[in-house]
């Protein structure tokens, strides 16, 4: 069981949030209402997606105090504590792409696939593109195609034809490109990478314990962040690490674990 501990915790976190959102609409619960674009906690604390707020600004909306505060709360939480944890602990699309990735391994897709290469930096260009298109069209551009809110709203208000996009992403990740959506394209992942760059909670590698089994690299959705495995004992500091903890789960040698980055010592 110990090799799925964080996986289970993450699923519990993701599903609990969806259940709370669902209950807010279906039963009038107040704990967490709205969607991941913007929520209200106990009808008091606003939470907003910083990227959505940026796009609104680009689209020419006049921002209210509530959304600015909400976006700041989210940015501060992930910026100081969680890192890019949104992607692996909150975002429901993570469950879709993880399923694709799991099936990929089961089908040995990597063994038969024609190599498709895409830069993992596309997500950062997507951010810029989203802001430009928002500015030109007067419409928050990523929010009209975001599979994250489509899935989120689908759970709360019922699915429409937008569910096709989720199937497309599943198939893309399964047959076209490993970790294609979350690891290459999604601009929200890019935003959270940037926000979480200096966060405190990080995976720490102890290369003395490492037996070079490379199981961590097999499961890691952002494998480039694990470049120190077996070489140097240090924190995984690259911003694309989602703090998903899969590497910690699969490591049988106690060479990986969550820790708190200590800026004072450095």
């Amino acid at each position, binding site marked *: 069981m110990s090799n799925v501990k964080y996986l289970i915790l993450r699923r519990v976190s993701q599903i609990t949030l969806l259940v709370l959102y669902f209950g807010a609409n279906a039963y009038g619960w107040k704990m967490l209402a*709205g*969607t991941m674009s913007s929520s209200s906690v106990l009808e008091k604390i606003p939470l907003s997606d910083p990227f959505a707020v940026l796009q609104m600004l680009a*689209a020419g909306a006049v921002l209210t105090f509530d959304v600015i505060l909400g976006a700041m709360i989210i940015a501060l939480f992930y910026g100081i504590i969680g890192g890019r944890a949104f992607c692996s602990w909150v975002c429901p699309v993570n469950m879709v792409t993880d399923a694709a990735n799991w099936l990929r391994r089961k089908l040995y897709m990597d063994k038969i696939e024609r190599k498709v290469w895409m830069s993992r930096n596309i997500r950062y260009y997507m951010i810029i593109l989203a802001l430009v298109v928002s500015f030109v069209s007067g419409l928050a551009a990523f929010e009209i*195609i975001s599979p994250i809110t489509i899935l989120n709203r689908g759970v709360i208000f019922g699915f429409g034809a937008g569910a096709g996009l989720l199937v497309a992403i599943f198939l893309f990740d399964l047959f076209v490109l490993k970790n294609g959506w979350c690891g290459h394209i999604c601009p929200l992942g890019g935003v959270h990478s940037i926000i979480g760059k200096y966060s405190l909670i990080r995976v720490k590698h102890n290369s003395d314990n490492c037996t070079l089994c490379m199981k961590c690299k097999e499961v890691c959705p952002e494998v480039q962040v694990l470049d120190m495995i077996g070489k140097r004992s240090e924190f995984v500091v690259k911003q694309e690490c989602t703090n998903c903890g899969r590497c910690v789960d699969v490591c049988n040698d106690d060479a990986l674990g969550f820790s708190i980055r200590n800026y004072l010592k450095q």
Partner: protein
Amino acid sequence: MNDTIKKPQISERRKFFTNIAHNAGLGVMGGLLWAGYADKAKGSTLTLRPPGALKEEDFLSACIKCGLCAEACVNRPSNISKLTGKPRPGTLKMAKAKDDVTIGTPFFVAADIPCYMCEDIPCVPVCPTGALDLASLTNKNNELDFRLMDMGIAVVDPNSCIAFWGIQCDACYRACPLMDEAIKLEYDRNERTGKHAFLKPIIVMDICTGCGLCEKACVTEKPAIFIQPREIALGKPGDHYVKGWDSKDEQRAVSQEAKDVTTKTERSEKGAADYLNEGVDFE
């Protein structure tokens, strides 16, 4: 041999510029596709928005698609069915891909579930972005006032409205939450029979909020009274037509006159109002 099939070498400099062209090209391609879709995604101009919504263009840029309005609508106390104790379907829906409304934005279809014009207007104060503007629904006494709602306007098709045929029906008139204010009945003599009356529903433009209860109540197969956004349903006469019999409107002409006249000739020295209205008394 090697010399003849040698790959063309490119300099670092050339590589640099080619890379920029490559990335810029991809960016422009993606951007054009995206912007094209965004333009299409703006959806139908016939969309009815929740109370207090900003002008459609501003609304689209300000709405963050959180759904708090729709949740407040469905879970309002007045929507809990007394029979089942559960909420009935709410008025506000969040647009899905097939709805011809910008995806994720709230709207309503009056013929399905109209707006019940709640006194406390639960859908508006919860909006975090001001896309639903609380100020537009607040009256002089600083209270929420559902009479200030303006989601659209009812339009009657007199050809299919059976009241215009002479059949007695005042379903819309009675369904209206602002009865005898937003819809008035105009009495008219039925010349065909010589002894009956027409009771024709007439919409009072300034009062009607576009809630859609009339559309829901209409008895004809396809409603003969229905809600349209004001920008669609209403015309605009232009500033240069003045109701000369209305002293307030006449004032508009007087104040406009100073701005309008650009040339002064012997003939235009005196404004038209000066001689046309000579000796006329306004109330």
